[in-house]
């Protein structure tokens, strides 16, 4: 029984392991008999290929755990890729600069002020011994004036760093500062509209998806469907660092992805913020009544989702040497699929970044295997679709349940069977009904 329990607990990893084994066994060999699939080069190729989707899926996971969804990430990535390419290749007052610099200023202002306030709150906590920040009040000087000042100073410092760069073309650091800020701003707008307007995340982010695509095209301009980035000729050579191999083997985009997902996983699992995210997804009303500032938490998850889309865009530009308004087209759906394959419930409240990591890798390895076998592109799509449904089915149900539904076997009488799962009550084909509600928290 414990073995069964263990198997069902680790279902997620079994899918990954299975696909890995299929890859190894079925892999073509090099002329010297080496396994191509298993070669470090190939596996690191996969890591590099999934890093864009992976970064987006990382932000998406937290959004989905709060019970939301972010359809705008593909378009946000498009804007960011255009801004990135334009800053790198076109000097002077470009639309990208007009979009980028205010974003940086605003982000600096808000983040600077927030960090300062956070510091004051914690000082106050240790001084008074009150454990909940909502029971604390800061006076005006420490609560408003000093944080605002810090934010303004931070913004001014960044402005002094960035503006001289706009005379010529931006370097890699400037881009790394500006582009994620653009993503952050648009993501935050998503969150603010959802929270302040009390609207469905689906429709708000859908609207943002359309709007952002338009802005991306406007930024790029009618005659620039694609902005090529040739490092060393029309852009600085140090941008190359973002597609270099660290220690000669590990691709830089992969490192960005790994660092981002690990950091976010730590935040989600070990900080109050992370607990609040799960709590909001579980029952938003209850979370709000128990004193969680659900609005703020949600805005932050959308903002981070946008930020990660911005980082993904920079890596995209580095890897494919171009920024364009259709860069992230359809990516939001790939990311959602990866998140759901990873066991995160679209209903919210349940899921993990470890699962998302597996989901992203399952997707990446699958494409790699099909590609290595030179399977026809159209057939690849069919197989991918089938495997999404199959994986989610295995994720959410076990074989006995499925067979029982079709009266092929008798259902077990005891509800608490080995897997510890309840049988689904709803008669829907939906992929996320019922299921094991107490897997997390």
């Amino acid at each position, binding site marked *: 029984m414990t073995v069964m329990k263990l198997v069902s607990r680790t279902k997620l990893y079994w899918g990954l392991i299975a696909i890995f084994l299929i890859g190894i066994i079925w892999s073509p060999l090099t002329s010297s008999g080496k396994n191509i699939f298993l070669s470090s080069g190939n596996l690191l190729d996969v890591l590099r290929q999934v890093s864009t989707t992976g970064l987006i899926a990382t932000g998406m996971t937290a959004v989905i755990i709060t019970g939301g969804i972010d359809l705008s990430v593909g378009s946000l990535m498009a804007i960011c890729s255009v801004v990135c390419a334009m800053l790198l290749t076109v000097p002077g007052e470009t639309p990208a600069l007009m979009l980028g610099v205010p974003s940086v200023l605003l982000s600096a202002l808000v983040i600077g002020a927030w960090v300062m306030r956070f510091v004051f709150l914690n000082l106050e906590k240790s001084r008074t011994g009150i454990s909940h920040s909502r029971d604390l009040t800061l006076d005006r000087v420490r609560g408003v004036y000093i944080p605002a000042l810090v934010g303004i100073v931070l913004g001014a410092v960044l402005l002094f760093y960035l503006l001289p760069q706009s005379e010529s073309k931006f370097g890699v650091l400037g881009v790394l500062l500006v582009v994620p800020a653009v993503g952050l701003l648009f993501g935050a707008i998503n969150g603010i509209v959802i929270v302040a307007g009390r609207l469905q995340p689906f429709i708000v982010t859908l609207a943002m998806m359309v709007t952002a695509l338009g802005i991306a095209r406007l930024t790029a301009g009618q005659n620039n469907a694609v902005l090529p980035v040739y490092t060393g000729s029309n852009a600085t050579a140090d941008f190359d660092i973002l597609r270099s191999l660290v220690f000669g083997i590990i691709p830089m985009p992969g490192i960005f992805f790994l660092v981002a997902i690990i950091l976010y996983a730590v935040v989600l699992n070990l900080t109050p913020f992370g607990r609040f995210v799960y709590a909001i997804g579980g029952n938003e009303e209850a979370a709000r009544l128990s004193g969680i500032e659900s609005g703020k938490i949600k805005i932050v998850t959308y903002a981070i989702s946008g930020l990660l889309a911005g980082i993904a865009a920079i890596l995209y530009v580095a890897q494919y040497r171009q920024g364009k308004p259709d860069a992230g087209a359809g990516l939001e759906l790939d990311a959602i699929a990866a998140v759901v394959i990873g066991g995160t419930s679209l209903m919210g409240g349940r899921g993990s970044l470890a699962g998302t990591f597996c989901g992203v890798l399952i997707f990446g390895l699958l494409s790699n295997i099909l590609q290595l076998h030179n399977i026809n592109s*159209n057939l690849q799509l069919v197989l991918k679709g089938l495997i999404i449904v199959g994986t989610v089915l295995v994720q959410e149900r076990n074989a006995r349940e499925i067979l029982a539904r079709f009266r092929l076997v008798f259902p077990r009488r005891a509800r608490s069977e080995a897997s510890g799962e309840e049988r689904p009550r709803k008669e829907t084909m939906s992929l996320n009904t019922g299921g094991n509600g107490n897997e997390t928290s």
Partner: protein
Amino acid sequence: MKRRDTLKLAVVAAALLSTTSLFTAHDGIAQDKKLRIGFSQATTIEPWRAQFNKDIIAEAAKHPEVELIITDGEDKTEKQVADVENLIRQEVDALLISPKESAGLTGVVTQAIDAKIPVFVLDRNVETDKYVQFVGGDNKLIGRAAGEYAVELLGGPGKAKGNVVEIWGGMGTQPAHDRHDGFHEFTDKEPGIKNLLDQQSGDWKQDQAYNIMATALRNNEKIDLVYGHNDPMAYGAYLAAKDAGREKDIKFIGIDALPGEGVTWVNNGELSATFLYATPGAEGLRQAIKYLKGEKVEKNVVLPTLKVTKENAAKIMKDNGL
């Protein structure tokens, strides 16, 4: 009283009209009445379409008597249909259309023809032959030119040898099939040429081609030539090979030859050759103007291709202001 006023007015108006029309008759149509030509573009987001628009705008600038109205179908059939309907309402003197797809736009093209507007179909045809003229490139022809050159690069007819990677454009699109068929008319005759991939589609995109090539490089120790159905895909494959340190062993061939893309890459020595898929922008407008001035035009104009290699790339770039 009232009736007399209107009568007076009518007489004055008629007199005015007749005098102005007399004037215009003397000066010819060029002065007062501009030729209003509507152009319905499928999308402007692809580089080739952007070049297409640049070409037609540049040509229109050479004809002061022409007023060109360009609409953008935003890559959606229904938007383009609405665009054309709009142009019909505006009663343009001639309609140029580059359809997003054949079937979906045939209806509205027929509508324009019924409204007595001469229609010029550019690049992709529609399923009627009542239009005045079709202007477009021939993808099969271009595919053949690429195939012939590929055989030459791999050792010449009869003794060509090598492993070829072909990266398809969109699988459901006619241009991709034509570019494939034309190419294989030459390469399939060579027993020494081995095709490594089976219908791998990069969907015309540089990034997707990059990933296909990255995997193909892992899978095959020897690749001699890459044929991309367009330049960005050939270039994406080149970048993948470059990142794997193998670009020196491989020849890359693309199609389209846009000045800012393929021609530049050929000039940099990154691609071996690219084949011009000319935009019908300039030629289409010239033909329409010719027709409106009463000259006869042919039913079908096929734009020729051009092989762009290191020898002529620099000149083409200079001609296009690069």
